């Protein structure tokens, strides 16, 4: 079985707008599912509005306080307006990754176009924020403090490159982690099937090795799913803080 087959996009409801294909694909379906589950979790959890929360309300509150705490400790009070964006980004990515761990589902974060779009949104937002807040003074960001003037011709291009590489690293990190993890899972699962079907009884026993590996990999992939969503969002908050404070 082709390990890359799982990333293929199918259109579920074909829609064509003046020659452009905007059909509702499996990817779009899972994006919708992730967003719907996130909304259900938060709104449903807070339905009772109890001062002493029940389990679901606790979960919703923990998610909010986690994000709010992260934004507050990194970006301070000025970062407050960004909590909804960071919160929705985190839940979207987390649920997208975790739902993708269910067999036979599709992981929309394994597509570069999706992660790159989100990363570019973050990058442009952060850059515009910097210009709005600091005006042209924003460019002093590329002049690091405490560096002797002799090194400036080297440091400034370096700073500029490291700034513009942010959307690339942000998107590729998430995309590569998820795609590589799922590909590995597929490859090792394929080994088990090949060994069992090809070598008969002996194959069953030899197949236990890749089986154990797949079990470990699944656990690891859940971990990676959560961590990558967290890292994406943490870096977003750090970039916001960076633009707000410039140094």
């Amino acid at each position, binding site marked *: 079985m082709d390990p890359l087959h799982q990333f293929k996009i199918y259109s579920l409801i074909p829609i064509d707008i003046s020659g452009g*294909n905007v059909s509702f694909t499996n990817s*779009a379906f899972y994006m919708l599912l992730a967003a719907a589950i996130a909304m259900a979790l*938060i709104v449903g959890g807070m339905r009772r509005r109890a001062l002493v929360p029940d389990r679901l*309300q606790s979960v919703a509150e923990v998610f909010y306080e986690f994000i709010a705490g992260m934004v507050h400790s990194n970006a301070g009070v000025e970062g407050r307006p960004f909590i909804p964006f960071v919160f929705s980004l985190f839940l979207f990515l987390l649920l997208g990754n975790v739902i993708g761990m269910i067999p036979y589902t599709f992981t929309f974060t394994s597509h570069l*176009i999706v992660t790159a*779009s*989100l990363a570019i949104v973050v990058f442009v937002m952060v850059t515009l924020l910097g210009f*709005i807040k600091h005006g042209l003074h924003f460019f002093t960001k590329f002049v690091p403090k405490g560096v002797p003037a002799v090194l400036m011709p080297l440091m400034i291009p370096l700073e500029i490159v490291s700034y513009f590489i942010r959307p690339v690293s942000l998107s590729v990190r998430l995309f590569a982690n998820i795609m590589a993890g799922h590909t590995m899972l597929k490859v090792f699962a394929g080994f088990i099937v090949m060994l069992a079907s090809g070598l008969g009884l002996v194959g069953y026993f030899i197949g236990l090795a890749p089986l154990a590996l797949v079990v470990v990999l699944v656990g690891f992939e859940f971990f990676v799913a959560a961590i990558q969503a967290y890292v994406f969002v943490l870096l977003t908050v750090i970039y916001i803080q960076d633009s707000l404070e410039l140094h």
Partner: protein
Amino acid sequence: MKTLVTPARLPRVLLVAPIVVATLVTGGDPAVAAEGGLPQFDSAFFLTQLFWLALIFGTFYLLVQGVAIPAVVRVLDARDGKIAYDITRAEEKRNEAAALAAMIDDKIIHARDHARTILSLANREAESVATARLAMFDARIAGQVRDAERRVGHARDTALKELPALAGALIQEVVVRLGETTAECSQVSSAIEATLNEPV
């Protein structure tokens, strides 16, 4: 620009960015990517991905900002408010109780002092009264004692004076009773006188 594009509104404004990416990237040939390469780079689906991502994430963000987060914040603030209110009320009650306790302690101390003052005053009064009465009784007794002593002195003197005569009569009686002789009163009295005047 500053008032139009506030930081809070930025995410909404920028969800158009992915469309820009789409136009940049779809320069590639869809056929090649679909056959040989990764499905990720099959540009036939780029537009649909971007469109639905923008739509779904945009709507999700608006719902989170408008509905979900206010719901959470409302409860968290209500809880913090109630806790703060409960704590301040508890603090107030505690201070009230402390003030009352202090007042009670104060009153007790005052009452004790007052009692002590009254007690000492009463003591002093009683003492003076007692001393006065004692003195009075002492004086009376002393008077009575003097009187008694005077009377006793008188009686003794009288007795001493009458003693010889009494003794003479007694002895005369004894002698008569014994029946030997009738002694002479005068003899007896002079004998008694002599005995009485003997050096002891």
